[in-house]
């Protein structure tokens, strides 16, 4: 079979993959936590500070012009990447968490009131739970949760049951960082809109791995992080549907987001500047832009297929190990490259420490999804998550190491 993506070649683009922990080849399977950066992104940051750095928008000098253009080009590229339509709908934040908090502190605090309902899912990341707990708490609204069906996918029937005119917001992740499920966000959005609810999609785990079209989804808010898509840390994105943009109040207040300021009051700039208080992270935007360029060079469909192949292969091999429990759907339909599992009698941390000695970086813990852990009735899990630089050979090493884990515990 012809390889869609030649991971071995791609690895050449990533300087960090030459690191050898304890003398072993690094096998980086912690991509759902954060991704590694290709040379082109590292270089874009270097180039930015070596040739363009300035504060944006307000100075009339040469570098400020260059930096402003770079920043706006990045915004433009993000808008095109998720088919946002207007670049004004793209707000740069710090990370997906801040993007969601922005909506919670502004639109939600203004529009969600006593007796209103917010629908979440039990699989949400803390970053898409805690902001809504705050809103519910402060406004006397009610949180309701959608649970999973026997195939570890969202129980779509319960959306139907729960949606009514009291529901003001449906917040749901596009792809789960624990189960790998890809949720039918287009369908959920359509259902929610029918009862007049707004929809926020947490796309932290989708945008890096699959084609996303926010206007096709039709959602009102869409949040994601640069660092999970080979971009720098410290840059996140919030898309706000154009029709809503003007009615969302400002969040952080300060320089850059104003129109007029008097001692006792101020008026605000038009979006997106209205939402970007203080000196923006131009470096982050420029680095993110380079990451998108890199992703586009490979192609999101290729990335998705590559990950699907790896995931399928890994799942098959893991199922053969009888002391390994796997969480999540049994088939590959609508499934991303994330595998959560446990080794019988051994805590995930110990598993992770043992694999680490073989150079394999996986994540262990609750993955910022404690309600899901409780629902699955496990204190924690191990998680392997793939990206373009991973390949089947690495999966083989991982499987071998996994088979050996219990030996260290004199269990076999």
């Amino acid at each position, binding site marked *: 079979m012809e390889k869609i993506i030649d991971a071995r070649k791609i690895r050449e683009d990533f300087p960090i993959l030459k690191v050898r922990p304890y003398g072993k080849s690094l096998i980086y399977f912690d991509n759902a936590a954060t991704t590694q950066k290709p040379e082109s992104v590292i270089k874009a940051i270097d180039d930015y500070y070596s040739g363009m750095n300035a504060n944006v928008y*307000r100075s*009339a000098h040469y570098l400020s*012009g260059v930096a*402003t253009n770079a920043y706006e080009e990045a915004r433009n590229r993000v808008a095109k990447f998720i088919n946002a339509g207007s670049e004004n709908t793209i707000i740069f934040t710090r990370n997906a968490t801040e993007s969601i908090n922005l909506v919670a502190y502004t639109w939600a605090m203004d529009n969600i009131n006593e007796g209103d309902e917010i629908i979440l899912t039990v699989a949400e990341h803390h970053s898409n739970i805690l902001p809504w707990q705050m809103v519910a708490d402060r406004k006397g609204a009610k949180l309701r949760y959608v649970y999973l069906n026997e195939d570890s996918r969202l129980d779509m029937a319960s959306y139907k049951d729960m949606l009514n005119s009291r529901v003001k917001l449906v917040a749901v992740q596009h792809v789960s960082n624990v189960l790998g499920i890809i949720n039918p966000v287009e369908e959920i959005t359509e259902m929610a809109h029918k009862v007049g609810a707004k929809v926020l999609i947490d796309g932290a785990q989708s945008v890096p791995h699959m084609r996303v079209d926010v206007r096709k989804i039709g959602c009102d808010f869409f949040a994601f992080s640069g660092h999970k898509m080979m971009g720098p840390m410290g840059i996140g994105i919030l898309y706000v549907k154009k029709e809503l943009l003007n009615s969302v109040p400002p969040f952080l207040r300060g320089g850059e987001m*104003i*129109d*007029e300021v008097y001692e006792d009051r101020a008026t605000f700039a038009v979006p997106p500047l209205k939402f970007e208080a203080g000196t923006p992270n131009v470096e982050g935007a420029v680095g993110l832009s380079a990451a998108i360029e890199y992703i586009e060079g490979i192609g999101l469909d290729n990335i998705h297929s590559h990950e699907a192949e790896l995931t399928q292969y890994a799942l098959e091999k893991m199922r053969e190990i009888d002391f390994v429990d796997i969480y999540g759907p049994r088939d590959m339909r609508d499934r991303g490259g994330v595998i959560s599992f446990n080794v019988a009698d051994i805590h995930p941390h110990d598993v992770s420490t043992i694999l680490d000695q073989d150079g394999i970086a996986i994540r262990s813990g609750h993955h910022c999804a404690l309600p899901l852990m409780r629902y699955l009735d496990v204190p924690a899990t191990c998680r392997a998550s793939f990206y373009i630089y991973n390949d089947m050979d690495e999966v083989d090493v991982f499987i071998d190491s996994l088979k050996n884990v219990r030996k260290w515990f004199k269990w076999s």
Partner: protein
Amino acid sequence: MELNQLYSEIILEHYQNSPNKKKMDDADIEEKGHNPLCGDTITIYLKMDGDIIKDASFTGQGCAISQASTSMLIDLVKGKKLDEAKKLIQEFTDMLYKRDVDLDDLGDAQALSGVADFPARVKCALLPWKTLEEVMEEKEEGK
């Protein structure tokens, strides 16, 4: 692009001695424009006769580019129909973004074509044109 083209005789003339720079007390339309990033402000006054801009003037505070641009715009739109003014706005905007456009209609405002080489200043030159555009949008929305 050289500074002496940016600050050409004709631009300086409009900036320093514009006969259009005065308040109009009996204006039908008074529209404020503001560039929050640099602080330039202008007010455009229009006296209308149906769809025709019978008279126009402006007041304001700001850089040579924004103020000259406003004076030139006033020159151009006086006596024009709103539709015609709209076309001029489009042509002027195209000129500043270096799009292919016929400049003949733009009169003195052609002198601002060099601003296109000073990206940080494009917003200054556009301010009055955007402000007039808002008048039209408000008219269309029936406000």
